[in-house]
């Protein structure tokens, strides 16, 4: 049982990294990966929302959507939007400093496709409560890892002499391509496909 859970975790973290092999959550990946500090904080906020979404999606799927499966998309998106709103209120109350540091990135998590994909994958693979939470933790940390690696590389690239045409998005994509190549080396780990 615990080996299966570890498999789910490592698969979501490295082998099937949400950002680098499923192309999920690319907008913040390219938009926010300019600075290491911000990238890390955004990754952690993402992970937190993923955990809560996983819990909520599991409860919804088990108790409500059984009776109306065609409402899945609408129900999930509303849950995600209200979760983000709720997290925003809690953080604002509990830690105003963190709230200011996260700024606009907090509400934008709503339209991050990685969160929605997490809920959909969890449903289509039939994960239970515990498996879902482990999956969410792995996926969230995987997104954080990709963000931090990317931010580190881009901070380094700022200091090097790059042709003017390559600066900006084009170079970010090429860097991401190489990163993604490197992550392909994890394929087959723990029998994950």
């Amino acid at each position, binding site marked *: 049982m615990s080996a299966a859970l570890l498999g789910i975790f490592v698969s979501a973290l490295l082998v099937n990294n949400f950002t680098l092999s499923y*192309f999920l*959550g690319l907008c913040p990946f390219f938009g926010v990966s300019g600075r290491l500090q911000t990238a890390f904080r955004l990754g952690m906020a993402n992970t937190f929302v993923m955990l809560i979404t996983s819990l909520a999606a599991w409860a919804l799927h088990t108790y409500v959507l059984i009776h109306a499966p065609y409402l899945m998309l609408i129900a999930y*998106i509303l849950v995600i939007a209200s979760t983000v709103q709720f997290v925003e209120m809690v953080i604002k109350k509990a830690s105003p400093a963190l709230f200011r540091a996260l700024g606009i990135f907090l509400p934008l998590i709503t339209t991050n496709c990685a969160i929605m994909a997490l809920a959909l994958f969890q449903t289509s693979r039939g994960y239970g409560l515990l498996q879902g939470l482990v999956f969410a933790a792995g996926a969230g940390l995987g997104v954080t890892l990709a963000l931090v690696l990317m931010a580190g590389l881009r901070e380094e690239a700022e200091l090097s002499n790059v042709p003017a045409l390559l600066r900006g*998005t084009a170079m970010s*994509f090429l860097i991401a391509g190489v990163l993604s*190549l490197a992550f392909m080396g994890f394929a087959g780990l723990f029998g994950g496909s």
Partner: protein
Amino acid sequence: MNGRDAGFRGEIAKGLFAENPVFVKALGLCPALAVTNSAINGLAMGLATTFVLFMSSLLVSALRRLIPSQVRISTYIVVIATFVTVADFSLQALAPAIHREMGAFIALIVVNCLILGRAEAFASRHPVPAALGDALGMGAGFAGALILIGGVREVLGSGALFGFALFGPRFEPWVVMILPPGGFLVVGVLLLLFARRAAARERAAAAEERR
């Protein structure tokens, strides 16, 4: 946008080139990379997105005076989610093979920032014909970009285009191109070409002015 209404046809042309959603505005990148390992998948994704964009623009634009501005984003999301559900189920019935291959990505059209962006920035402030033109243009620009990316990756990665083999049996496919890294690399190179074209245009315009 420069404030004036370009009319139905102008809106379509704008979406195809000057404001191409993928290459110029960098919107909707996730599906643009995730499903484009062949041209036919790019085409299907482009059509599904255009359908959702068209229908939600129509509804948002027609109801723009009735939707209270405090709850507009939630309203748009419910409208979009409804049409995505329609597209998802239709594709599942009409083309089950393609639907299987794209997996969750059809459902993920809900969170494509291109659609919510157009609803908020354009459809909610323009009359129905202009909004429909904008939706068709943006949809066509998006589909075109996806077919281009998918086509390049399919030709390089499996030596075929729309499923027809191009090079004969001696061609050694460049497999990495249909795997995830290929998506990033192909889009990176295409962005580079677009930037080069824009830079050349600017230089030409500057030379024109000096004369």
